[in-house]
């Protein structure tokens, strides 16, 4: 079964289906969402099969495929996954059907005085195209191809935010696009630079990751090239001070778009740190690591403080993500396998817990028609199920032991304490702040006297339960038994840390969950 061109199918299927949707009449809403859901479930099943077929102890890149694309540029359509990319693709496979469930009626009311300009068909078409491109970003092993997907995936997200978002959607969409585009273009300079370096080093220009990993680059040049990649990924992730687009985009995006934006799309940034910055520019990575760690810790504290000050629930969740991305960056640049493994696991867990949090906030907003925390109160006595789900997702977001995020946060802190005790301790303060902002939001919306608007709320319906339950279940399951994921992630992180020449990169890691 491992001979199947999994990655190609995973990309082509949603892409073809996305364009195919345009052939379906616009008013056949039921048909449109069934096709979309069906396709995304097939993708999920295939992704699960692929994970089962993946051999953690096997070669670094598996399911490798390579086709000639633009030989004049030395570009190949080369795909392959290591453990890190694999779990991210699995996360995409999981989140997309969930998002479809949450966006079941998105665009159904187009043009009826809502001011929104997109139809349901375009929403789901963009969603499927986005899924294909996201899988491509993680599956590409040719840097040119990676860049192409990195930029191309902006287009569907841009339309998702701009056509289906909140009142300031135009501003948010353009801001999102331009920030990412600037980062991408800076990266393009480095990508071309790498090509030229490879042409000088091995006589023939190439974009193949494996070949580029092995050439040695002059340390000064490394720093320049590193910065090109780093700025792009730091904007994408986003790290403070490149983060200002995220609260706008996160708050204005439709709920489904926000889940994918924060859950997956932004992870391309932290994934990029691990996949490209560290192995390709080990000297520069080590040189810049202290500065980046400062940004990471700043992000943890600053994101948490700002989250506390928000009155808009979606913005609040977006700011919590900035804090969480700080944790991930801390794990990546601490250069220990433990911290790196924790960071990758964090990427998955954050997708699940923040995804759930966004979805639940979206349910509240769809009931109360307001994003402001102050408009809610006493919700838990009207809709106990919703409140319970909110609590669970919130606890996961603040990394309570027993939930999934605890394992990853613990690994990151543990792994970074050795080389950087100060940063690790400062980051711990972020956990306390996280407890504050999550519990305060929970308390203000769920407890207290029942606000008049809240009285008529209905509790979770079957559809909502259906798409929420997988995430909630995973919060518990991965909190108790993260070993399967760790087994996949650890070898890949080990290899990355070996590339960067980190000390103790062969040390055993990933036992955090078994304690």
């Amino acid at each position, binding site marked *: 079964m491992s001979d199947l061109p999994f990655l190609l199918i995973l990309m082509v299927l949603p892409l073809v289906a996305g364009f195919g949707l345009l052939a379906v009449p616009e008013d056949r809403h039921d048909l449109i969402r069934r096709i979309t859901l069906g396709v995304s479930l097939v993708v999920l099943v295939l992704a699960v099969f692929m994970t089962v077929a993946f051999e953690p102890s096997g070669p670094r890149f598996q399911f490798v495929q390579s086709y000639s*694309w*633009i*030989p*004049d*540029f030395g570009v190949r359509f080369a795909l392959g996954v290591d453990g890190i990319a694999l779990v991210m693709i699995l996360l995409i496979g999981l989140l997309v059907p969930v998002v479809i469930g949450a966006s079941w009626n998105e665009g159904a009311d187009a*043009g009826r005085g809502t*001011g929104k*300009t*997109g139809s349901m068909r375009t929403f789901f078409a963009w969603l499927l195209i986005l899924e294909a491109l996201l899988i491509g970003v993680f599956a590409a092993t040719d840097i040119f191809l990676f*860049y*192409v*997907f990195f*930029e*191309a995936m*902006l*287009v569907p997200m841009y*339309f998702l935010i*701009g*056509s289906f978002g909140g009142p300031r*959607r*135009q501003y948010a*969409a*353009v801001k999102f*696009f*331009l920030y990412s*585009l*600037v980062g991408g*273009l*800076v990266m*393009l*300079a480095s990508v*071309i*630079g790498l*090509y*030229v370096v490879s*042409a000088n080093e091995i006589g023939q220009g190439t974009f193949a990751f494996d070949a580029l990993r092995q050439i040695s680059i002059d340390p000064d040049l490394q720093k320049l090239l590193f910065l090109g990649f780093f700025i792009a990924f730091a904007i994408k992730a986003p790290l403070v001070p490149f983060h200002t687009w995220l609260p706008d985009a996160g708050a204005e995006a439709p709920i489904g778009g926000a889940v994918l934006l924060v859950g997956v799309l932004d992870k391309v940034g932290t994934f990029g740190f691990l996949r490209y910055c560290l192995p390709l520019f080990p000297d520069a990575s080590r040189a810049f690591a202290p500065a980046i760690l400062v940004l990471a810790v700043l992000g943890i504290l600053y994101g948490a403080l700002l989250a506390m000050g928000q009155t808009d629930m979606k913005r609040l969740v977006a700011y919590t993500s900035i804090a969480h991305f700080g944790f991930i960056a801390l794990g990546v640049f601490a250069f220990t396998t433990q911290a790196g493994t924790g960071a990758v696991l964090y990427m998955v867990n954050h997708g699940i817990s923040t995804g759930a949090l966004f979805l639940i906030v979206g349910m509240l907003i769809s009931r109360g028609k307001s994003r402001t925390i102050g408009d809610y109160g006493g919700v838990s006595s009207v809709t106990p199920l919703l409140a319970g789900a909110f609590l669970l997702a919130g606890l996961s977001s603040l990394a309570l032991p027993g939930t999934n995020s605890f394992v990853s946060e613990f690994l990151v802190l543990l792994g970074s304490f050795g080389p950087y005790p100060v940063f690790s301790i400062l980051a711990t303060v972020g956990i306390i702040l996280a407890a504050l902002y999550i519990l305060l939001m929970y308390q203000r919306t769920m407890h207290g006297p029942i606000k008049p608007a809240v009285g008529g709320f209905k509790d979770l319906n079957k559809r909502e339960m259906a798409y929420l339950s997988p995430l909630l279940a995973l919060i518990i399951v991965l909190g108790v038994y993260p070993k399967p994921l760790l087994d996949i992630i650890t070898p890949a992180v080990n290899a990355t840390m070996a590339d960067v020449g980190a000390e103790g990169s062969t040390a055993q890691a990933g036992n955090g969950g078994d304690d």
Partner: protein
Amino acid sequence: MPDLSAPSISYVGLAPVLIVLAAACLGVLIEAFAPRHLRWNVQVALALLGTVGALVAVVLVAGRNELTAARAVAVDGTALFLEGTIAALGALSILMFAERALDPAKSAFVASAALPVGSSADRKLAAAPYSQTEVFPLASFAIGGMMLFAASNNLLVMFVALEVLSLPLYLICGMARRRRLLSQESAVKYFLLGSFASAFFLYGLALIYGFSGSVDLGEIRESAARSGSSDALFVTGLALLIVGLLFKAGIAPFHAWTPDVYQGAPTPVTALMAACTKVAAFGAILRLLYVGFGTSEWTWRPLIYSIAIVSMVVGAILGITQTDVKRMLAYSSIAHAGFLLVGVIALGDAATAGRGLSSTLFYLLTYGLTTVGGFAVVTLVRDGDGEATHLSKWAGLASRSPLTAAVMTLFLLGLAGLPLTSGFTGKFAVFRAAIDDGAWPLVVIALLASAIAAFFYLRLVVLMYFSPPAEDGPTVGVPGLPTTIVLAVTAAATLILGLAPNAVLDLAEQAAVLVG
């Protein structure tokens, strides 16, 4: 004085240019002798025959590398590639000229250009279903001149070609059916500034002749190599020649005419100017710099380097402030001219004519096709006054005509250089060549300029898709066959050259030969 025997001329090598010019001459005769009701169809057929015939001739002639007509005209890879590009883009523009379904009066051109605007005769003819068919032979002359311009290996021939391409353009700029005053104003502006540019070029030519005793590019190169290139005559002459060419190519700081003329001219003519004239001017720039001044690289390199920066930055930043689609595309073309100069910088020295040349050729093709497509979409969006070019009119276009908006978005993303479109492939090729050549600071600036320029392309997308339609918005015309062909060809090219550019990249690579 040597004997005055006629030089040998390779008519086969010159066939592409000759075919277009022959079609133009025939067109003039038809104008004189054919009855009015036949003229339109015959002229359209003839002009198309000329340009498409030239394209076919280019394909047949391809592979030659020689100088002909006493070294005055080059028939080499670069010349033929550019001639082919101009002929193809010219044919597409002619198709836009020939569109009859969009304007209620059946044509974008005026019924009688000589009538004063607003006179009673003019008003009477405002809705007359015929127009000046002279535009077709005029356009053919311009296209023929452009092809010669890109191939001339001799400053005098280059100057003659410059005039042959410019004079007809001045005329047809002023022949719009709608907003005639604006159109005539643009023609006068173009003429006045264009004459200055011609004068600059001519003066530069005279100085260079004074320096080297020849107008032949090869001999100029040799005398520059012989006597060094710091001679005042030489440097001044070189600078004046470059100024003349930069003006034609619409490169900042010699761009002032571009927005006004692009806005005022009939949109098919704007497409012709934005695509073909730019290709021709860059052909001349490449040949002048690499053949004529190939050994005095360090005299012009700093100049081109800084002008590239100015053009990219001016185009990108001023583009943001525009409120008219055609002006916006004009500034976009100024920015793109800067990107093209990045490719010109990247050639290195003439001896190792390498990637810079082929990537510039490729970029010219992709840019030309996408730009023609963009202007073709502009002709579709109309209100009672003709084309609705004000940006606010485009609000909500996607809900009125999803296909038009989608095609325009494709062109805009292509111009912005997003991956999977031809614009990205072109930019990548040019930037790679420049970094290869060590010009990475220029590339970084170019990338930042692309990001700025992306803003105004995006703004139009935002308007079309994310804004509710305006109450008294424009209608989207149903294009006739000619414009449909233009849109289909350019949209397909924008996609294909982004997804699978290899064949054309190879072609450009093979064509990157300059003789002389």
